[in-house]
Each structure stands twice: as structure tokens, then as C-alpha cells.
């Protein structure tokens, strides 16, 4: 036993030197990433692999970080214009761009890439639903014919599905991409992929943007599920960038040497959709009572450690269409009791089911905190953690038997206020994401009008969106919990970092240097 321990320790000590022999001849950036990349196919991937896609592939247009002068800037397209009726769009492509496999970027390549995505039709491909056909008008000119008006420039900047891959790659199937192959135009190329463990990118020497001193040669994504390990890594300098730590840990981390915590509003928010067709939440009064029962302040200050902000309607603060003047619920249990009494539930006395994504501790604790408050007004909340799909299935199958409260994150597929309102609240014959089963013709009309006006008269559209949200708040179709921040931790010696919530958690390494 003793001898065995001795041998063990000797091995441990023998191996120690290796840990310190880091050859520093390459400029390496390490991204400590909390989850594995599920699907590396640029056409169908619509999850966390976007942090890779954003560096390996490019889109025709680029959505600028909020606060920029323009919403969009050119990427693979240098300019574009839409017809009067917004049904025909013409994009002029950048000249002299080649894919990683040597193929040239041209109109045919763009058509082939987007056709592939549309044909496969998975993931976020539905954002191209308006496209009737794509034509290669000229070597570098692509024309899109739409079947109905849509902001195609915005759509083509999307962080999912809008990536342009080389014509050769477009012939491949998903498995090819998922084996770690790629051919985009981006500044980095996939060098190796150890699924579930790490991925290494190397700089693309032929990148059209050119290279300069201090930019990174090598990017390593370290997949580490354990946030504590991530935290250890960023503290020790083993990682240069990470996110998804427990909210409580950012405070101490912000004060740590060599580390910056970058907090920016994101386009993501958390709502609790209330079932508007099932007793007792079918009663507007009850829904209002529930809205008054929710412990907003505790959730924001304690759960999110003050890093998020209480939502004010569904559209987050950094999105146009947000109604800064809209009313905001706050916890008021007396008021809640009154409303319940008015609704015919003087002492509460009913049970509610709240579902959330099983592994999501934040959503779970939101439920736990709410449950304690509800208990005070005589309502019992059952918290049910389900896999997202199961949660969704429950909501879809039969609204009358569905959960009463559905913990729901929303983020836009492409960034317009319409995404929140249409996606979650416009009436649907078959409920899809309108899982409040909300149906208000007045609301529907307002949102419809706003969408069509938005291209021509932004201010008018904005006013209509705010009015629409006012209806929602009055109806209390959902509890608007929190506008979530992007919280990113980055080493201080890296310069050039700006968060762009339009591309969640994507670090554009090309912009960075050390």
C-alpha cells in the first residue's frame, strides 16, 4: 500500500515538469467554453457552435454591436439594395475572397451555400422562409427574390444558418462537418477537434482582411462543463476568455488580478409564460395577482447578483421598440391577495405547475423563490424540471392540460423587436411558441402593422410596439422576469474585445491581440 502510494507520487512528480513546459512561440488564445459544440454543420447548427462558426465562416452582412452608428456593416457583401416593395434584394460581393479550400467566393458559391441551408431546412433555416429564389446575376452579384417582404439584409446577418461555406463543402453532408471539417472564408480554420474536450483553430494565412502583429495564431476552445474549473482557469491564466460562471462568483472575480469582467446587456430575456386558457390562470385577475406575487427584486439582486435588470415588457432595453415608460410590476403580496379575492380565490387555495429546463439552476431557483412567495398568498407551486423538449411537448399537446407557468428564455433569430412579440404572443391556430396561448386581435393587428411599417417609419413602428406591449402587460400574459446580461470574463492583457450580443458569446478573435 505504502509502496504503491510512493510509486504513484513519483509518477505524479515526474509528470509535473511537463505542465510548465509551455512553449510560448505561438500566440495562443484559450476560450474556456462551458458546453460541447453539438453540431458543426453551418447549415443546421443552431446552438453553441456559433462561437466557432463566427470565426470560421462569415455572413454577407454583419450585425453591429449596439451603440454603433449603423445597425449593419458589410462583410462578404460590400453593398446591397432592396427594391421598393422589399421583394427583390441585390447584394454585391467582396472581391478576392477565397475559401479555406481555395475555392473563390462568388455569386454561385453564395447561392449554393444558402440553397443548401434552405434545402436541408433544419435549425434556423426557417429565417429564409421569405426567399423564393436566389440568382447569381453576375460573378459577384447575387439577387434574392422574396415571396413576401422581409428585412433580408438583417436576416443575412444572423448568427445561425446564414454562414457561407465553400461550394465543395456544400456538397458534403452533416457528418463531414461534424468530423471537424470546415471550409469558410473566416480568419480561422479548424485544425483539430477532440469532441467534448477541445477544438483548436489556426489562423487562415490567406484571410482577406490581412494580418498584423499581435493577432492570435492559434485558438483553443477548452470544453469544461464545470464552471469552477473555468473560473480556476481564467484566474490562473490557463484560459483567456470564458463565461457562464455562477452569478455570485463574478463579484469576487471582478476584483482579481489580470481579469476583467465585461457585462453588457444581451438580447436574451427570461419570462414565465402564464397559461391563459386554463383555470385558474385563464383569469386576467389571477394572472395579475401572480405578476404581483413574483419576487422581482430578490431574483434580480440575489439570484442574478444584481447583474441583470428586471424586465419591462417582453422587449429588452437594448432593442428598439423597448418601452422605457411602460409600467413594471413589483412584488406586492397584499395587492396580489386582493386581486385573487376579486377573482374568487380569497385565500388562494389552488396549485400551479411551473416547468423549467432540468439542468437550468437559474430557472429552477426562480421557481423556488417564487414558490415561497406564492405560499404566502395560499398558492402552491409545483416545480418540475424537464428536458426542454419534454417541457415543450407538455405545452403543445393540450393547452388545457399543460403547465400553468412555463419558464421561457427568448432570444431573436434575427434581431428585430418583432421577434419577441410575434414569436411569443401573436395568435396561432396551433400553438407553437405562443405558449401563453394568448389571443388578442387588437394586439395581433398592432404587431402586424408595426412589422410592415418598420422598414419605412421606424418611429411609428416603435410606438405601435410599445402600445402592443401595454396590452400584454395589462393582460399579464407573462411574468417578465429579467433582461439578461452577457457576462464575459477576459484576461486583461488581451486588447480589442467588444461584446456583440447579436452573436451570443462569439469572440471575434481576429479583432483581438496580445
Amino acid at each position, binding site marked *: *500500500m505504502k509502496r*504503491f502510494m510512493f510509486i*504513484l*507520487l513519483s*509518477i*505524479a*512528480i*515526474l*509528470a*509535473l515538469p*511537463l*505542465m510548465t513546459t*509551455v*512553449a510560448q512561440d*505561438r500566440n*495562443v488564445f*484559450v476560450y474556456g467554453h462551458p458546453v*460541447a459544440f*453539438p*453540431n458543426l*454543420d453551418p447549415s*443546421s447548427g*443552431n*446552438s453553441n457552435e456559433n462561437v466557432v462558426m463566427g470565426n470560421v465562416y462569415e455572413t454577407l452582412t454583419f450585425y453591429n454591436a449596439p451603440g454603433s452608428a449603423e445597425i449593419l456593416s458589410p462583410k462578404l457583401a460590400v453593398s446591397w439594395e432592396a427594391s421598393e416593395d422589399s421583394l427583390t434584394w441585390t447584394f454585391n460581393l467582396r472581391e478576392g475572397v477565397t475559401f479555406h479550400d481555395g475555392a473563390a467566393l462568388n455569386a454561385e458559391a453564395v447561392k449554393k451555400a444558402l440553397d443548401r441551408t434552405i434545402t436541408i*431546412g*433544419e*435549425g434556423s433555416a*426557417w429565417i429564409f422562409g421569405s426567399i423564393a429564389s436566389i440568382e447569381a446575376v453576375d460573378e459577384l452579384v447575387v439577387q434574392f427574390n422574396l415571396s413576401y417582404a422581409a428585412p433580408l439584409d438583417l436576416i443575412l446577418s444572423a448568427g445561425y444558418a446564414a454562414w457561407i461555406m465553400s461550394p465543395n463543402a456544400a456538397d458534403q453532408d*452533416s*457528418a463531414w462537418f*461534424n*468530423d471537424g471539417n470546415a471550409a469558410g472564408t473566416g480568419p480561422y480554420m479548424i485544425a*483539430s477537434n*477532440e*469532441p*467534448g*474536450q*477541445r477544438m*483548436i483553430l489556426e489562423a487562415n494565412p490567406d484571410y482577406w482582411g490581412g494580418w498584423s502583429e499581435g493577432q492570435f495564431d*492559434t485558438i*483553443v476552445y*477548452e*470544453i*469544461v*462543463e*464545470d464552471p469552477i*474549473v473555468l473560473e*480556476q482557469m481564467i484566474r490562473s491564466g490557463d484560459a483567456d476568455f470564458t463565461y457562464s460562471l455562477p452569478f455570485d462568483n463574478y463579484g469576487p472575480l471582478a476584483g482579481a488580478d489580470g481579469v476583467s469582467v465585461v457585462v453588457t446587456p444581451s438580447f436574451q430575456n427570461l419570462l414565465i409564460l402564464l397559461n391563459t386558457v386554463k383555470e385558474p390562470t385563464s383569469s386576467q385577475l389571477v394572472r395579475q395577482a401572480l405578476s404581483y406575487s413574483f419576487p422581482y427584486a430578490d431574483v434580480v439582486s440575489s439570484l442574478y447578483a444584481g447583474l441583470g435588470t428586471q424586465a419591462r415588457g417582453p422587449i429588452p432595453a437594448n432593442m428598439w421598440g423597448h418601452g422605457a415608460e411602460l409600467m413594471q410590476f413589483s412584488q406586492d403580496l397584499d395587492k396580489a391577495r386582493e386581486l385573487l379575492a376579486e377573482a374568487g380565490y380569497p385565500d388562494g387555495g389552488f396549485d400551479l405547475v411551473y416547468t423549467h429546463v*432540468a*439542468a437550468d439552476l437559474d430557472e429552477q431557483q426562480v421557481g423556488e423563490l417564487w414558490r415561497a412567495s406564492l405560499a404566502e398568498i395560499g398558492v402552491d407551486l409545483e416545480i418540475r424540471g424537464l*428536458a*426542454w*423538449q*419534454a417541457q*415543450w*411537448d407538455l405545452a403543445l399537446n393540450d393547452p388545457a392540460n399543460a403547465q400553468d407557468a412555463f419558464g421561457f428564455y427568448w432570444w431573436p*433569430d434575427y434581431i428585430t423587436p418583432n421577434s419577441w412579440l410575434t414569436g411569443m404572443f401573436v395568435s396561432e391556430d*396551433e400553438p*407553437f*411558441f405562443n405558449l401563453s396561448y394568448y389571443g388578442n386581435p387588437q394586439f395581433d393587428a398592432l404587431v402586424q402593422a408595426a412589422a410592415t411599417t418598420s422598414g419605412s417609419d421606424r418611429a411609428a413602428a416603435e410606438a405601435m410596439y410599445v402600445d402592443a406591449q401595454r396590452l400584454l402587460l395589462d393582460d399579464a400574459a407573462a411574468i417578465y422576469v429579467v433582461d439578461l446580461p452577457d457576462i464575459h470574463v477576459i484576461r486583461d492583457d488581451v486588447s480589442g474585445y467588444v461584446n456583440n450580443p447579436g452573436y451570443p458569446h462569439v469572440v471575434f478573435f481576429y479583432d483581438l491581440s496580445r
Partner: protein
Amino acid sequence: MAFLSFLIRRLGLSVFVFVGVLILTFIVSRVIPSNPAALYAGARPRPDQVAAIEKKLGLDKPLVEQFRVYVGDLLGGDLGESYHSRRSINTDLRIFLPATLELVIAAVVIALVLGIPIGVLAGAYPRSAFDYATRFVAVAGVSVPSFWLALIAQFIFFSQLGWLPLGSRISRDASLFYPVALQTGFFLIDAAISGNWQAWLDALHHLILPALVLSAYPVGVTIRMTQASMLEVLSETYVTAARAAGLSQRVILFKLALKNAIMPTLTVVGLSFAYSITGAFLVETIFSWPGVGKYVTEAVLNVDFPVIIAVTLVVTVVYILVNLLVDLTQAFVDPRVRLA
């Protein structure tokens, strides 16, 4: 002759069990509470996408037909595709299964190397201080939750002592500067084949902590079993007869008695293996060990049933094979089976 018929019967049994496992896993996979097609479509799919995928995955066909396809694919060596990642499960398992096996085999080897001699001595000197200490260690080994032990071990050997890495199979530096060319998928073997000793040491270094944590249960079981069968064997008349014949304690313990006592211990190898796999399922995530355990726990969170079922099936087949091997070894060691 008897051995041959034993072999055939045992093989036949394994095949039968495999078919049973196949049916059982299929049944389990068809009571999923959520629509696999929606799952396959990814976050926020459109209804037409779901319908198309249902068709693509054959979920619109009757169950019997689905089972036929399922078995057909399996016999063709195709475990299917993950709904969540779209990756071929075969490809994934080629990486993840060796990782887990490397870990589990290391744990079982530790268990045998430590457990058998300790068990023999504890059995030989009952009621000694060593015996009591051993019994305590053995019970502790089988009682400790592996995932908790993993946390404690990380705290001691990583946070406090800084001797061993926190997790993963190989360090970033090794994979950047001394990448291992994958052949068998066992890092220790692959690195050794290519003479990549830096990476070999690095891999070993990463293996130690998870393997030790994982070995707690098998060490406990092996000690218990060896000790118990040793006690039993030492009370047999033939041991008394050996003592009466004046044979030395060393010969009696390690030659005569051990050969008898090793039989039940061999059974334990199979069990140890199973328990280590179980442990791996819980511990791999903590050690960021990219094995089937981590793979399947993620699949559980995503209700990624093709993965859960494929892992269940493959790991079970590995387990069946291990048990088969154990049984055959045992039959080979015991002349009563071999010659009867």
C-alpha cells in the same frame, strides 16, 4: 469435451442475452415522453420541420417496422445518429468508449493489484488489527459515493497539494505540442506506440486521479471477496491437511489457498468492471473525462435517446464480453469444470 460444451452453451447464452438486451432497450427507448423528431430538429423548430424529420427518422412507421429497422441498422454496425449533435454515434463512441475503458481498466487493475494481496493477508490473519483496518477500508470503499469522492480528491490533490491535474484526458499543452496520433483510442497505448513519451506521461498524470477515485468501489469489493473466500478456504479440511503435512504458511497461503480463493475473486472482476463503469458514468463529468459516461449524462439532459440506447447497448455488450471472459477463465482454472 466438457469444456467445449460449456463454451458453446455459454456463448449461446451470451447471444440470447444480447438479443434480450436489444429488445429491452428498444422498449425503453419507445416510452420517451417527448417527440424525438422535435428534439432532432433542435431548438425552436417549425412544425413542418418536425413532420419532415419524423418521416426522415422513420418515426411515422409502425413499431414493429421501427424495430426491424433498428435491428437491421445495428446488425449493419450502425448505432445511428445523435438527435442532439447529429453526429454519428459510431464516430463518437470510437473516441469515447476507449476513453472510458482506459479509465475503467486502470481502476480494475488498481483494484486487483491492491485488493487481492490485502484480502489474502486479511483473510489469513483474522481478528488482527490489519484485518479490522482492512475490513473498514473495504466497507468504506463500497460505501463512498464516487462523485463525492471525486470532489474531495480534486480538492486535496489539485486545490491543496497541486500534485495532479483537475481533469481531462490530456493537457492542452500536450495536445498542442505533442499531439497523440489516435489509433486504438487508448492514450497510453497510442502515445507509447508512437514513442510520444511526453504525451504518455501527461496522459498517465491525468489518468491517476480519476482511476483512483473509480477504484474505490472495486478495491472494496475485491478485498471483501478475497478476504471472505480466503477465510472460507482456510477453514477447509484440505488446508488443515496441508498444515498437518507441515507445509509452510507461505506455500499454504499464496500457492494452495489462493488458487482456491481466487475463483470467487475472479467473478468479482466482472462485477468490479461493471461498478467501475457505473462509477465512470458519474465521475467523468466531474473530471471532464471525455468518455461514454460524460457522453450519456449529456444525452440524458438532452433526452438524446439514440445516444442513451446506443451507449446502454455497447457498454452492456462490453460487460457481457467481460463476464464471458471471466467465466471462461474460471472454467479453465477449475479442473472440476474443465474435466468433469
